């Protein structure tokens, strides 16, 4: 293993320690990741986690951090713990200086005039942004196959999906193209990709991380969160991006708990951990179920009490989700009409009316899954159908919240598999939207209730050798519990495996001929 290969496999926490100790510079670290991206991301069999690589700016920020450290004194002492640690950002989150596409043709070439609040916080912490990661168009999908810029591949098996919508962020972290990434989670878009790529992903409590600058799919469900290789790394990143933001009215006023301390302390002794009866068993792959049971056994050995809870209304969650999410999305995506920014397509024939220009732009600019959801949502909000669809779905949402309340009266933390199956083959469910939607059955309830969830690697399924995700759920505002339990389970599992799960992933063939096929290089042509 080359020196760089050692560097890129370090956790963010370990990198931060080495940077602070002066054992390595941020430019060296950042360059190592940029080299890795160039080596594994492009080409016909590349991971294709990135839509844009931000080489110049990332290196400039890294050099700035190195200069501050070298000069010493107060500015060096005041540097954030993660200063100089690079990060990738899901291309749903707007950034000054880089294109933001949301994985859609309709925003091709668009540059945001403002930074998302979370991006501002990354910049304040002086974390070099490596680039923007691939996603299902407008975050609508569970496989990243709905990206207008081609699918991302799963580093564990390049013929399989990396999950979605945040497949780019999860694959980038799994393929050691970045130590950290930002994702967004509306129905599982952080946690399910984490599960199928053997990485950690967290959907924070709704309102605990600002949504300002995350292109909205479903406003009442969307939440930005961390993607990483370890539980502690997610806690470190969560701490950077979280906290109140006056630009987001749904942002909670509460200060964040010390999530990093929770991840470092890690303790389950005497805790009640609840298995959700409705979220395992039938419909779940045998290998997923086996790894899930092993995790339960380990937690029991560590002193946790395992109890079973029932959430009877979870069976309606998927149906209600597919009314609320498209309803909000149909309205949120109305602004993409070719009038002010992004793609504008003129109809082929006369007359050239505003309605027809908007229509032609949206017909050409949106992909099938986006159109499917816009049509569904427009229908659900229509006069005469509103009460039956949107109204009923909101009632189900209340019932799901009550189920959670009842469950958390019996358990401190709930546990389930993150996804019913391991990564499926690219193309396998592309023409079967319902099968695709079912992949989110275990992650959706948390979004419907606003509670936080964390997915961490639970091992490899016996039948296919692919990663299985374990999901932890906590009451709203109790994100710290996820890190406390997650850190324990992670250390017990890694002790069993003899190291991180990602060590078991196959080596990726590296290409030194072609750099990554990114928007940047496309633009240069």
């Amino acid at each position: 293993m080359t020196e760089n290969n050692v560097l890129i496999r370090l956790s963010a926490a370990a990198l931060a320690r080495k940077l602070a100790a002066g054992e390595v510079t941020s430019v060296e670290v950042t360059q190592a990741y940029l080299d890795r991206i160039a080596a594994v991301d492009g080409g016909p069999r590349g991971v294709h986690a990135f839509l844009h690589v931000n080489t110049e700016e990332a290196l400039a920020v890294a050099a700035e951090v190195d200069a501050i450290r070298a000069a010493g004194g107060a500015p060096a002492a005041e540097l954030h713990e993660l200063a100089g640690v690079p990060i990738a950002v899901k291309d749903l989150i707007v950034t000054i200086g880089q294109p933001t596409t949301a994985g859609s043709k309709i925003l091709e070439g668009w540059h945001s005039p403002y930074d998302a609040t979370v991006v501002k916080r990354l910049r304040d912490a002086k974390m070099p942004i490596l680039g923007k990661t691939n996603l299902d168009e407008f975050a609508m999908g569970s496989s990243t196959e709905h990206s207008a810029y081609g699918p991302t591949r799963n580093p564990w098996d390049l013929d399989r999906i990396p999950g979605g919508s945040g497949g780019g962020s999860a694959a980038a972290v799994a393929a050691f193209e970045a130590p950290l990434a930002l994702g967004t989670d509306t129905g599982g878009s952080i946690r399910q990709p984490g599960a199928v790529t053997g990485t950690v992903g967290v959907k924070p409590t709704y309102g605990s991380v600002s949504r300002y600058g995350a292109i909205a799919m479903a406003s009442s469900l969307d939440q930005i969160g961390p993607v990483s290789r370890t539980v502690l790394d997610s806690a470190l990143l969560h701490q950077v991006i979280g906290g109140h933001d006056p630009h987001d009215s749904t942002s909670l006023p509460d200060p964040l708990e010390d999530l990093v301390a929770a991840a470092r302390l890690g303790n389950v002794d005497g805790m009640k951990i609840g298995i959700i009866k409705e979220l395992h068993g039938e419909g779940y792959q045998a290998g997923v179920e086996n790894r899930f049971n092993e995790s339960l056994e380990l937690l029991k050995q560590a002193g946790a009490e395992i109890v079973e809870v029932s959430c009877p209304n979870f069976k309606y969650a998927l149906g209600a989700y597919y009314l609320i999410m498209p309803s909000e999305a149909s309205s949120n995506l109305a602004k993409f009409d070719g009038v002010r920014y992004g793609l504008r397509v003129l109809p082929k024939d006369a007359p050239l009316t505003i309605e027809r220009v908007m229509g032609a732009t949206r017909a050409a600019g949106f992909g099938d899954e986006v159109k499917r959801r816009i049509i569904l949502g427009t229908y659900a909000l229509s006069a005469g159908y509103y009460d039956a669809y949107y109204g009923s779905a909101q009632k189900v949402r209340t019932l799901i919240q009550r189920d959670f309340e009842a469950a958390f009266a019996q358990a401190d933390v709930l546990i389930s598999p993150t996804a019913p199956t391991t990564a499926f083959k690219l193309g396998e469910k592309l023409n079967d939207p319902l099968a695709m939607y079912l992949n989110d059955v275990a992650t959706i309830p948390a979004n419907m209730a606003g509670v936080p969830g964390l997915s961490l690697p639970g091992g490899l399924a016996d039948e296919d050798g692919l990663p299985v995700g374990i999901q932890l759920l906590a009451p709203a505002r109790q994100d710290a519990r996820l890190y406390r339990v997650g850190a324990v389970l992670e250390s017990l599992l890694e002790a069993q495996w003899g190291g991180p799960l990602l060590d078991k992933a196959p080596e990726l063939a590296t290409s030194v001929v072609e750099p990554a096929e990114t928007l940047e290089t496309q633009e240069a042509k």
Partner: protein
Amino acid sequence: MSTDATLSFEEAMEKYDPVLGFEVHVELNTKTKMFSSAPNVFGDEPNTNVNEVDLGMPGVLPVVNKTAIESSIKIGLALNCKIAETCRFARKNYFYPDTPKNFQTSQYDEPIAYDGYLDIELSDGTVFRVEIERAHMEEDAGKLTHMGGAAGRIQGADYSLVDYNRSGVPLVEIVTKPIQGAGSRAPELAKAYVAAVREIVKNLGVSDAKMERGNVRCDANVSLRPHGRERFGIRSETKNVNSLRAVEHAVRYEIQRHAAVLDSGEPVIQETRHWHEDTRSTTSGRAKSDADDYRYFPEPDLVPIVASREWVEELRATLPEPPAERRKRLQADWGYSDLEFRDVVNAGVMDEIEETIAAGATATVARKWWMGEIVGRAKNADVDPGQLGVKPETIVELNKMVEAGKINNKMAAEVLDGVLAGEGTPAEIVEKRGLAVVSDDGPLLEAIDAALAAQPDVADKIRGGKVQAIGAIVGAVMKATRGQADAGRVRELILERLGVEG
């Protein structure tokens, strides 16, 4: 443009009973917009008072302007409304380029204020109660200008320009319940109601309340039913009637038009109508049905607004004197008779008179100028008196010149015309036009002697003690000096000349 048939207003009233309803949009004068920190300023370069939120950029979120909420609560309280303990915003979805998000954030089924009323005093002192259904908050849309094509409409235009400066400006929409029983007073009531709303929001200080700038905009609903029938007729909604006079005229016109339609046996079409000031008529706009589907749903990017009772009471305590009470106070302060004061109110110059008095004029002088000079000019120009652009300072300056004997009243009226024509300040116009009362007695005495010589019999009468006959001589002197003499001085000189005690 086809002209619709109309009945005479009198005939329409004989046959039908009008029912009115108003939606008045009030633009609030907050420093920033309803949901963004961009400035809320009128008249700037297009698309300069905008930020990413007003432009509907990807990823933006709204944040409610607290001052706008306070202003809305104040309006609700002034309209005797109940204030909702919690209320929400909704999204009104429609594709049109004046809304950058292709939805308008507006209150829908949860208005901040509801169930109020406003007592409207008509010109003869009758008080008519208008019931307020609701006052809700929303954001204004951008301004579209359609270039080429006919009549400034989007249909047939070559292209359209959009200015998002107005996009996101806070609005309060005040909706009345159906107003029944106004009969032939309907047009007058319409004008008086909008005037009262404008007065209230101006008095509260929550809006600049300038109708010519669109700060207060009125949509007027009119329907007719045969006398004695309970069920309402089909209504038309005349949009953006933007002056008090236009409100009165539009309601009157629509009553006459509806009556003609009903007389012909045709049904009235439910539609929006456009008001045309030039022809004083309306033309058909968009067919509107209650089935327009805006797919309203609660705005998920905003949390509910909670108006605690303590907060509402704090705001109630800050409310200024209600306009009706203010009117009583002003009438007493100014010493106008009931008739004089009602004329002032009906002419819509009460605020102007108050400002003129504040600028230094007496109540009598202010009334003389506004009622005697300016109201008539406004009528000729077909605008509201306040819109003529007469500044209180101008009146004070003119009056000072008259009192100092520099110019007489006739000249002052001429100077006022000059000011309105934009020729400069009163002093400049007096100078430019060479208007000054002749104060050198020499030329006056010549004219007096000539006048006395021309009318010896009148001179004898005066000498004989019939001083009241002096008017004929004064008139001749004024004529000879083309009105430039000070009549008072002329009188003195004549008496002096004839050796008679005044």
